[in-house]
């Protein structure tokens, strides 16, 4: 063993080749990463663009001008009846729907009533409520057209409807406007009358129940497990169970909700309360896991510091550990809540897929939620529901973005710079 080691030739060809290869590997890796980012950004942009493209028309509505002689119709309503809550009932009782149908026949011939949406007379009703003086006049009101015509006007209808639209366009009686009813109404069988408000409110109530239960229980469970629980077989078992719960398919939680909340406790079917409870079961493990990780990440030196000035364990937790862990806990909560908001399967099991034509006003009212509403509309045979489905998806995404935005704002507010 008396071979001596040659001095390293740092400038030799072999080293130059090695350096070149290293640079190439570096470049390759960076390009791959960049490609991955662009690809995912591209998919996201495509998704959003196609949603907006298809859904935007769901917020628009085709209307036809309907001349209507309200003075001649002699509706049996007094101006006093038109003020206050009884107005809708008074106008319906006075036969306004028939008046509108006759006006349509008069203006557009025998098939005139087929041009109008079933909800056309409601538009006339609302116009009268806004301006009771028109009862003594001959007025022209733009009312929504029938769904098939609406679809045709948006260049997607059947030939017959397209022809009708072409005729009406030539007469110059068609207009388009914002469909505000889509944001204020609930589900309906007629696509021109459907609205997202019922499902939106259902989602809102359900999410309120979910976060109201899952957040405090999840955070307290995480705090107890991290700060107080002894390390033994039982806590290990609990930890494994929680990790497994976070991975259980959501439909199983639906079955659990069906069996426990509906079967055992006899809570009302289709209610946001039950939906919220079921989703809370699903969200809690996510919050517990994120919470435990965030609590674990709080430096022990802070706990020592607080203990050493004589803080009790509860004071250590609530004055120091929790505030420092909160950003991490909120991140987990965002993930859990976003998942819960988009969840459909478990809610089908507890009956939130029913046709519900009135927005819920209490936690125990029958309701549906946005993703289930989207699922129901996407299943409908009527062509008019296609754009409504996309429009509902836009509303769901906006809701999701608003919720996440709020959570991220909160997280940044609580974030501590070290």
């Amino acid at each position, binding site marked *: 063993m008396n071979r001596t080691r040659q001095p390293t030739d740092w400038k030799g060809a072999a080293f130059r080749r090695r350096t070149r290869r290293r640079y190439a590997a570096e470049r390759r890796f960076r390009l791959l990463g960049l490609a991955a980012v662009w690809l995912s950004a591209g998919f996201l942009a495509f998704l959003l663009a196609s949603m907006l493209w298809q859904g935007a028309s769901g917020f628009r509505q085709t209307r036809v001008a309907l001349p209507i002689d309200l003075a001649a119709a002699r509706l049996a309503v007094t101006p006093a009846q038109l003020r206050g809550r009884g107005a809708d009932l008074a106008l319906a009782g006075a036969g306004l729907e028939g008046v509108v149908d006759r006006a349509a026949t008069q203006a557009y011939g025998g098939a005139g009533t087929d041009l109008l949406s079933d909800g056309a007379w409601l538009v006339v009703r609302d116009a009268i409520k806004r301006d009771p003086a028109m009862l003594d006049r001959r007025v022209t009101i733009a009312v929504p057209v029938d769904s098939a015509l609406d679809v045709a006007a948006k260049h997607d209808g059947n030939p017959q409807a397209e022809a009708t639209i072409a005729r009406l366009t030539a007469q110059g009686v068609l207009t388009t406007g914002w469909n505000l009813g889509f944001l204020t109404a609930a589900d309906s069988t007629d696509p021109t009358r459907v609205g997202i408000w019922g499902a939106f409110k259902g989602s809102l109530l359900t999410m309120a129940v979910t976060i109201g239960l899952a957040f405090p229980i999840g955070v307290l469970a995480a705090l107890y497990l991290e700060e107080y629980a002894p390390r033994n077989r039982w806590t290990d078992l609990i930890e494994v169970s929680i990790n497994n719960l976070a991975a259980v398919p959501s439909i199983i939680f639906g079955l659990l909700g069906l069996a426990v909340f509906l079967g055992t406790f006899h809570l009302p079917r289709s209610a946001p309360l039950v939906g919220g409870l079921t989703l809370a079961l699903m969200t809690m493990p996510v919050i517990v896991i994120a919470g435990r990780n965030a609590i674990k990440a709080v430096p022990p030196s802070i706990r*020592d510091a607080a203990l050493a*000035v004589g803080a009790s364990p509860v004071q250590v937790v609530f004055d120091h550990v929790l505030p420092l862990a909160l950003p991490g806990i909120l991140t987990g909560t965002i993930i859990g809540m976003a998942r819960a908001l988009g969840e459909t399967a478990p809610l089908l099991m507890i009956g939130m897929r029913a046709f519900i034509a009135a927005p819920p006003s209490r936690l125990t009212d029958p309701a549906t939620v946005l993703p289930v509403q989207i699922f129901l509309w996407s299943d409908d045979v009527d062509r008019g529901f296609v754009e409504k489905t996309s429009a509902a998806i836009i509303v769901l995404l906006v809701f999701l973005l608003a919720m996440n935005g709020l959570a991220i704002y909160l997280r940044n507010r609580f974030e501590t710079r070290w």
Partner: protein
Amino acid sequence: MTHKISAKDVSVFYGAKQAIDHVSIDVDQDNVVAFIGPSGCGKSTFLRTLNRMNDTVASARVTGEILLDGEDIYAPSMDVVQLRARVGMVFQKPNPFPKSIYENVAYGPRIHGLATARADLDLMVEQSLRRAGLWDEVKDRLSDSGTALSGGQQQRLCIARAIAVDPEVILMDEPCSALDPIATAKIEELIHGLKGRYAIVIVTHNMQQAARVSQQTAFFHLGQLVEFGRTGDIFTNPREERTRDYITGRYG
């Protein structure tokens, strides 16, 4: 005369491992006591038994008796929270709360209800910061974060935080090991100033520091208290061979 802290036959176990082996030591009210010894000799462990910080380690077990003013601090009747308020602690690494300088100092008095009016609290904060020699440097930015200070300032802030609850004893666990020589000198000066008002126990790796700040020195080795006496005697005329070897740098 009664001692402020009197430890008798104290042993500490981590699980099956014995970290401290039958140590007895007395700390007097107006003294600074230094614990010296090689790394892993148990001096920090012993320090942490004096305010029961070892309670937070699940496997730790303490036997023997530690009296604070004649009262057994491991007795079931002893309130740990109050004990830790009476026996304050400063750690190796400066660990201010990620809150404002004011809040760092005010936290202790606030949780113990020592101040009822805002003015009282302001006074306590100012007094503590003055005693910690930090007031002039931070008086204009009390609402800045405590973590924004320099390392030496952070450590003095931690001392101010400990002083603010008006303890009787202050334990310091290598308070200067993360600091530069200038900051170290400031802390040592501070310890001189605090002497007499508080009984101080300081763990240090730096023997010059022990010689400079303390009146009594305890030399630990392998979990045992080898020698305990007046600092002058330990450094000039140790009784034990092991002490002499350590002080002269033969090991450690």
